[in-house]
């Protein structure tokens, strides 16, 4: 179980692994922002395909990600159903036309082509960034990540915080397991068998020791870092930082191109939606 919960970096030699972390970070953030804003189905399909191709090129094995994929698909389907149930005619009000599949536009429950297109858009928006995120997570070494954050202009203190988070998640996770087993041995029930109140009590008995040991750890680590004069200067260098190479500039150019296409489409469509019903 422990293995499946956290997808992590895997050493391989593909062009995606060789790209610098900063390039991948800029790529992921800008593509996910433009994809978040647009409702142009063609464009969303385009970046979806693009990210699937990248994923395929990164040679990530399916077994590495099958668990997280199941969760994501379940989440997306559940959300789509919810979006539909709460407002079945929302698509028609967005596109301003009515092409019914069945039902009456005046009744609450109906289905129109507009709604289907809208739901398809939502589905794409939930999923298009997933291959990108997985590529990013599995091809970027965690210690290079902080260096990349700093390189794209985020203060090194914040970058270092992120680094500490990534470094300490396994530790906190291990502490959590140990404490949880110890408390269960003492008779606190936290499994599904118990009712909500018992589970809540059990949860508190676990998080108390977990939080108080972690507060001690914050103390220790920050003293160690002060002793090493962390935060003395306004800048710092990173052992794991990589210089931009030709491939990075090419990749950044490609990303810029995609973003420009996305922005142009806002103009062409007169807004964020692409409307084929006009």
């Amino acid at each position, binding site marked *: 179980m422990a293995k499946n919960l*956290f997808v992590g970096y895997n050493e391989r030699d593909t062009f995606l692994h060789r790209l610098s972390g900063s390039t991948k970070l800029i790529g992921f953030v800008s593509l996910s922002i433009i994809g978040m804003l647009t409702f142009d189905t063609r464009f969303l399909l385009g970046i979806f395909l693009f990210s699937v191709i990248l994923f395929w090129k990164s040679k990530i094995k399916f077994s590495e990600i099958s668990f*997280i994929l199941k969760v994501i698909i379940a989440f997306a389907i559940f959300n789509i159903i919810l979006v539909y149930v709460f407002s079945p005619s929302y698509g028609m009000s967005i596109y301003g036309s009515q092409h019914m599949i069945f039902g009456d536009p005046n009744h609450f429950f109906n289905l129109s082509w507009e709604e289907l297109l809208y739901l398809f858009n939502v589905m794409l928006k939930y999923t298009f960034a997933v291959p990108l*995120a997985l590529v990013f*997570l599995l091809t970027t070494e965690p210690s290079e990540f902080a260096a990349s954050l700093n390189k794209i202009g985020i203060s090194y203190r914040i970058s270092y915080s*992120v680094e500490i988070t990534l470094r300490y998640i396994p530790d906190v996770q291990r502490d959590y397991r140990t404490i949880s087993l110890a408390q269960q041995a003492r008779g606190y029930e936290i499994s599904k068998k118990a009712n909500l109140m018992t589970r809540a009590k059990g949860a508190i008995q676990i998080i*108390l020791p977990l939080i108080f040991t972690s507060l001690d750890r914050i103390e220790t680590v920050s003293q160690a870092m002060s002793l090493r004069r962390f*935060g003395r200067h306004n800048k710092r260098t990173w052992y794991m930082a990589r210089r931009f190479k030709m491939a990075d500039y090419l990749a950044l150019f490609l990303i810029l191109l995609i973003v420009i296409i996305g922005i142009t489409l806002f103009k062409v469509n007169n807004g964020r939606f692409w409307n084929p019903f006009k």
Partner: protein
Amino acid sequence: MSNKNRSVQTVVATGIGAAIIFVLMKFIAIPTGISNTQVNVAEGFLPLLAAIYGPVAAGLAMFIGHSLNDFVTYGSPWWTWVIVDGLVGVAFGLFKRQLDIQSGKISAAKLVLFNVYQIVVNFIGWVLLAPTGDILIYHEPASKVYLQGVVTWLLNSASVAIIGTILLILYAKTRTKRGSLKKEK
């Protein structure tokens, strides 16, 4: 303690705080049946982090912890909620001085005041900001996101009221009370 030391402590508290939030979100979340909303234990940890280390650490830790959790669970962060969660952390941190937990004395009046404050903060965050962001950015139907918002508001407030208050009281007990030492005559 000098300013330099405090800034180092903020960096570390942000990092480790985010790691704790991540683990709490991933392991101890009790689902409610309405999608993407759960009884969030991590939310209950936030007031303590905010009361000890202040707005910057609490806000950033929540932001980092939440986005990492979204990252590995859903593939990409749901930015509107992540940002609102960060802002809630900042808002809790602004109450640090009033709470003054390091003094070791935490009266019932202070706790009541804090709980009123947190319920208002959560209301602004989850009922006003987050759903509005979802409508503007993600174009989701209003009825769906407002329902999610209201449920999250209730659950998060409850989590802070119960777990948060317990943690604050217990932490205050571990501090040496100010003025507890007297000069021998």
